[in-house]
């Protein structure tokens, strides 16, 4: 409870560019990112020139120094990306923004992620470039889906039923059906539709997999004091943790436990820093590149165990407004759209503000996770004022 970071910063603005099917954006990722930042500034009630810091993750190319010319930045003080190509740095980028503000290195930090095929090629290739060494490439493994499939196969072997994977997908698509911006809003994902969808890499089917989209998202982080002046509903950063447990942290198949999404140490630190635990969380935006790692992330964070995952991960439990732990309430990476997880940071803040399309009544604590099964992972716990 003594962390200098706890509650010291808050999100005051969220924004997105237009979001397109993959390859569909007429604009490149830099332009999309500028638009997202401007939208987040309008939401926050600040001028873009007031931003003095930028953070990102996932090898994003839209660095602060590239954005500043369009935003009128007067003095760029903080431009920092979480290492590695995966979505594991998603929440870490928010932690990096909070850390910069707490340390006095910046006052107004935009957390950004912009992706467009016209700029970076297919996202799955863009984020894996240089990360799959010869041990993978020679053996026909070049995509995150394949590694997540291997981990998921073992997760099922350890006793987690396939129904848990379906529940993640079903809850995501149900939430998408109520979100007019969700790309998967018209898919009624009943169990038969799910089971009859084509294999991608066993045991993952089509509906176990995230989309790829073009677009950008941004959030604005400021000190708690400044947040109180800007908005009556800040989403406070109660805890932000990134990293990797011993034995994780590189791409290899000898990690233990193999089924895990790699969050054990991050989750432990997150609960310690926040003073809260999994039973306190109202809603979770769980990075879902694939359903299996999302279930593993829920286990890693202590929401359930290998033994109880089947009972916990049901469509009813994972669905807003009244499930035990509604997840991916915008539709998430599976069904809203996939900007390498960045739309989920926007949704987590919306839940704290009370304006989600699938609002959890009175949501006070919202978890955001980044990057299951990547070499580095991260989590953030957002809270309303009453949770400070």
């Amino acid at each position, binding site marked *: 409870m003594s962390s200098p970071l706890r509650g010291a910063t808050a999100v005051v603005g969220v924004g997105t560019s237009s979001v397109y099917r993959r390859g569909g954006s007429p604009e490149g990722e830099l332009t999309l990112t500028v638009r997202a930042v401007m939208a987040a500034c309008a939401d926050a009630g600040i001028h873009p020139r007031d931003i003095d810091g930028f953070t990102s993750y996932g090898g994003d190319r839209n660095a602060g120094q590239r954005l500043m010319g369009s935003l009128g930045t007067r003095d760029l003080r903080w431009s920092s990306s979480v290492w590695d190509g995966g979505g594991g740095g998603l929440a870490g980028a928010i932690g990096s923004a909070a850390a910069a503000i707490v340390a006095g290195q910046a006052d107004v930090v935009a957390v950004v992620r912009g992706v467009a095929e016209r700029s970076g090629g297919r996202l799955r290739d863009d984020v894996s470039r240089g990360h799959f*060494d010869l041990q993978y490439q020679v053996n026909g493994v070049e995509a995150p889906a394949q590694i997540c499939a291997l981990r998921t*196969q*073992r997760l099922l072997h350890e006793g987690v039923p396939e129904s848990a994977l379906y529940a993640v997908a079903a809850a995501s698509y149900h939430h998408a059906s109520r979100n007019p911006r969700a790309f998967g809003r018209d898919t009624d994902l009943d169990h038969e539709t799910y089971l009859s969808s084509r294999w991608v890499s066993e045991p993952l089917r089509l509906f176990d997999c995230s989309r790829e989209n073009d677009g950008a998202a941004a959030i604005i982080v400021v000190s708690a004091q400044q947040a109180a002046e800007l908005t009556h509903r800040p989403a406070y950063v109660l805890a932000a943790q990134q990293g990797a447990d011993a034995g994780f942290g590189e791409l290899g198949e000898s990690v233990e436990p*193999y089924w895990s999404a790699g969050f054990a140490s991050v989750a432990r630190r997150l609960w310690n820093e926040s003073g809260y635990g999994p039973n306190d969380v109202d809603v979770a935006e769980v990075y879902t590149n694939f359903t299996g790692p999302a279930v593993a992330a829920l286990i890693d964070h202590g929401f359930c165990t290998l033994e109880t995952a089947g009972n916990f991960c049901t469509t009813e439990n994972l669905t807003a407004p009244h499930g035990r732990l509604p997840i991916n309430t915008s539709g998430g990476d599976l069904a809203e759209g996939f900007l390498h997880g960045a739309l989920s940071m926007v949704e987590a803040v919306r839940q704290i503000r009370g304006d989600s399309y699938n609002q959890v009544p009175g949501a006070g604590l919202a978890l955001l996770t980044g990057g299951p099964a990547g070499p580095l992972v991260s989590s953030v716990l957002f809270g309303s004022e009453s949770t400070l």
Partner: protein
Amino acid sequence: MLDTDEAEHLLRGAPDAPFWEALAKDELRVPRCAACAGWVWPARPACPTCTSTTFDWTEVTPEGTVYSWTRVWYPFVAVRVDELPYVVLVVELPHAGRVRILGTLHGDEAGLAIGAPVNGIVAAPSAATYGLPALQWLLAEAGG
């Protein structure tokens, strides 16, 4: 996408270069820390247990058990489109401290399951392996 020249370039200087050189001689070799004797895989510049940077690349009998597997249906890999679907295994090596190594399944798929015993062979370099020799696995009790 990788090509054979780039694969050859990547190999040089990589921590696992001796692995590929051994495969070319039809041997499976896994690094073992020269100081603490721990098996280290994937190969890396230093031992995570004792930080020694000296390794004995030890020949290991290519026998193992299936730790996990996936049958790949989507054309993620351009040079393997004609092979779809193919099976990728994570194989646990009992003769090398139970480290786990990747390889594709060769031959009969009957009996494919976690825990199934497998025997390794070295497949000749091909376009599908970017010109490098590759460890492939056969189910020891295929059809059983």
